Structures are given as C-alpha cells and as structure tokens.
C-alpha cells in the first residue's frame, strides 16, 4: 500500500470542502464554522483549519486529501498542510470578481510548493458564469511559466473532481492505475 497526499486550495467558496466530500471514501473531517466575515454573503460557513478525506485507488494506493481555509489570515495552515504533499489542486470560482487574479495570488502563495510538486487547476461554477473561459486561464499560466492541466469542474460532482485529481496524479506518477 502506498500513500499520497495532495492539497486542495483556492479562495473562499471555490468548492474545496465540497470537492473533498465528493470524492472521499469515508465521511470527511471538516472544520466548517459560522462565518462572520465577507464570506457570509456567499455561504453561511467557512473552513477554519482543514478538510480531510481519503480516496482509494484500485485498493492499493491511498490518496490523502487535505483542504485549506481560503482566507489569507489562515495562511499558516497552508504551510502546515502542504508539508509532505505531492501536488496542489487549485480550485477557482468563476463567479468571483477576478478569478484570474485569484489564480495568480494562489500560485504565488504556493510557488515553492508547486515548483517542487505538481499543479492542477479546476474552475468551478462555470454553469453560473461561463467566462473567463479555459483558454484565458491557460494563456495566463503560460505567461507565468507554470505547467498545469485546467478543467471546468463542478465540485459537487464526484466524476468531475475525480478526473481533476487523476490528472494531477498522472503528472506526479504516470504509472499509477485508477
């Protein structure tokens, strides 16, 4: 049995907690608490420490899934949670004011980690806001000299999140079987 750890990050409301719940093989650990900040306008609760779930692949590989809080005041958790991780799933909410700026901010914040591991980007809520489109994100990533797969995902859909995670795992280890 081998163990992998990957980390989900991105702004508040992007769907990190939902995504981990969608693909975890057991009830995830979450630390959702009532929001009193700006988050409250979007959703009632917010992650203050971490989300945790596990996804098993073909009965031998275990993927440990850790989600971070989205607000910058929790960035000490970003450091803690990335330790020992093999990749980052960055979720971006297409309905936010400037999701490209969100992407740049999170890539800059996780730059050291990404440079040693791998990155996959998932754009959520594209059913509500169809722009910016994927080619815009890809262009920005090329400008930033970052290589990463970008998908539209609905964090509520197991198949969507699973595909995103698998594309990340494939970048980490092309030999993995699903």
């Amino acid at each position, binding site marked *: 049995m081998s163990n992998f750890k990957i980390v989900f990050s991105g702004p508040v409301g992007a769907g990190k907690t939902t995504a981990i719940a969608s693909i975890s093989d057991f009830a995830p650990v979450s630390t959702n608490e009532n929001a009193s900040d700006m*988050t409250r306008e979007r959703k009632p609760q917010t992650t203050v420490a971490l989300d945790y779930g596990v996804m098993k692949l073909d009965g031998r590989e275990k993927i440990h899934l850790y989600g971070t809080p989205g607000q910058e005041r*929790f960035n000490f958790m970003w450091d803690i949670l990335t330790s020992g991780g093999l990749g980052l799933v960055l979720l971006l909410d297409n309905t936010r004011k400037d999701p490209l700026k969100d992407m740049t901010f999170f890539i800059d914040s996780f730059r050291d980690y990404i440079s040693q591991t791998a990155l996959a980007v998932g754009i959520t809520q594209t059913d509500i806001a169809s722009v910016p489109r994927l080619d815009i994100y890809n262009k920005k990533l090329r400008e930033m000299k970052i290589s990463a797969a970008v998908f539209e995902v609905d964090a509520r859909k197991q198949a969507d999140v699973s595909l995103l995670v698998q594309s990340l795992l494939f970048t980490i280890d092309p030999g993995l079987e699903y």
Partner: protein
Amino acid sequence: MRDEMLSSILSELNGTSADIEASAIISIDGLMIAAMLPQGMDEDRVGAMSAAMLSLGDRTSDELGSGELEQVLIKGDTGFVLMIHAGKDAVVTVLAKPKAKLGLIFLDVKRAAENIEQIL
C-alpha cells in the same frame, strides 16, 4: 457599549492574576472581537490560530470519544496558551506565564467566558 463591556471583562480577567499576560475574544471564524494583547502581536494571527486550534480541538475531542470540548491548552517552554468557547460563536484565548497556577486560571477564564457569552 458592547465593545466596552467586552473590554472590561478582559481587563478584569488580566487583572485577576499576575500570571495572565494577555487575552482576546475571537469569532469562531478567526476575527478579533476584543483584545488586550501585548504590543506588536498580530491580531489576525492570534485570531486565525485560535479559531483553527479550537475547531480541531472540537473535532478531535468528539471523534476520539472525549465528548464535548471544554478547552484547548498549549504548553510552551515560555508560557501557556489557553482557549475556551464563549458560547458557540466565539473563543476566549488567554496567554499565561510558564509557572502559572492553571487551576485558578481555568476557573477565571471559564467565568469570563460565561459573561462574554451573555453579552454576545
């Protein structure tokens, strides 16, 4: 008015024991509501760390069968950090000296937390 009452609870708390060095009231999502912290200590960090620790304490206590969380206690070689719920939407965080008499501090902080809960 509310802010003044909260501040006065904190200054009273800091006054009850010479071992209490600082205290703060924080929303459960990590934002400072009232604080009496040493100069230079970053309120945002204290707030976010308190919220993260308390939330993990809640989950751990529950999942490992220790029941409802009463407090989180952190011991470092130069002091203690104590965190207690003040109702379900706030946390009281207290910094105490390394030789502090914890039993007394627990009682004082618990009483302060009950008063804070009334006001919030």
